């Protein structure tokens, strides 16, 4: 009888040992999985930061590209015998551009969309204070103006080709992202 009891005790011990071992193994596996999950979460967060940084750079690049393009539009700049005067817009060309945009809005929108994309481009006359304003491109559909927009203000001269006088103007470019 004592042998039986001893045998049972040893058997029970063995089962407990086995259970312990299994438990240990399972615990280790779970622990490793938890570590891996933590690692993935941390690296994803780090990636997110890096992506956000890249996105910011690209948004900046986009705004700069559009601003440079808008301030160098040959078709609106002042010119004398084919020589362009940079940082200067011809008032009559601006008005002409708006006339053309009204008449052929589809063609103009399509042509300039490839460069301006989602942006508003306006030129305002500051001095003398005349309230003259020309909106040469307008595309802010679907964007919340107050949230994700960047406004660039560039001083430009506005030339009256008849009187040959220049006034102080402002080129306002609002880009949306």
């Amino acid at each position: 009888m004592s042998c039986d009891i001893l045998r049972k005790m040893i058997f029970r011990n063995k089962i407990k040992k086995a259970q312990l071992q299994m438990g240990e193994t399972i615990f280790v596996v779970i622990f490793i999985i938890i570590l891996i999950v933590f690692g993935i979460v941390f690296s994803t967060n780090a990636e997110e930061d890096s992506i956000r940084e890249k996105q910011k750079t690209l948004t900046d690049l986009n705004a700069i590209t559009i601003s440079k393009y808008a301030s160098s539009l040959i078709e609106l700049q002042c010119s004398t015998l084919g020589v362009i005067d940079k940082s200067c817009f011809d008032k009559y060309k601006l008005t002409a551009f708006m006339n053309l945009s009204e008449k052929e809005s589809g063609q103009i929108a399509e042509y300039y969309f490839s460069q301006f994309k989602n942006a508003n481009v306006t030129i305002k006359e500051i001095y003398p204070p005349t309230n003259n304003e020309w909106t040469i491109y307008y595309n802010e559909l679907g964007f919340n103006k107050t949230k994700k927009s960047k406004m660039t203000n560039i001083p430009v001269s506005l030339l009256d080709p008849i009187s040959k006088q220049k006034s102080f103007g402002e080129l306002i470019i609002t880009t949306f992202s």
Partner: protein
Amino acid sequence: MTKNKPLIRFKNAQTEIFGLVIIVLIITIAMLFYLSFKTNPDNPTKKTLYQEYAYNEIATSFAQTLLHTYVSDCRATVSELIIDCGSLRGRRIVCADGRNSCEALNDTIVYIKNETLDEWNYPYGLSLKLDSNRKISFIKYNCTTDTVGRGTPGVFPTPYYPDPGMAVLEIGICKY
């Protein structure tokens, strides 16, 4: 001997677990170090790409545009008013409303600056030095020549030729 066996086994298990815990601790500390380096706040004096471009563009364009602006009351450009106001020749320009060139110059610059630089809310320093004694200057948000992060100013000389000397228009935009 048989009594010691379970004790040794216990110690083995304890050592194993202890080792595991140390590994976990090391990994955790390493992660913390990594995170602390990664989430460093931005250097406050570092301008973004966009700011670099915008500030340069504004500084250059503002001065050039201002100098070419025509003041119809005085039948002269700002550049001509500067020459008339600053040169030894004396003030010959009289505007339609009776102002002399210096008054008209000051009024025009103030108006344009109010409608542009002040509206845009950039910290800027704008100055027009007519000679060693006379200088018109405007500063916003303490943006002086000594301010850290002030962009290279646009400097625009206007000679008084044939009279000696020249006026210097200077504009600098400071970091945000």
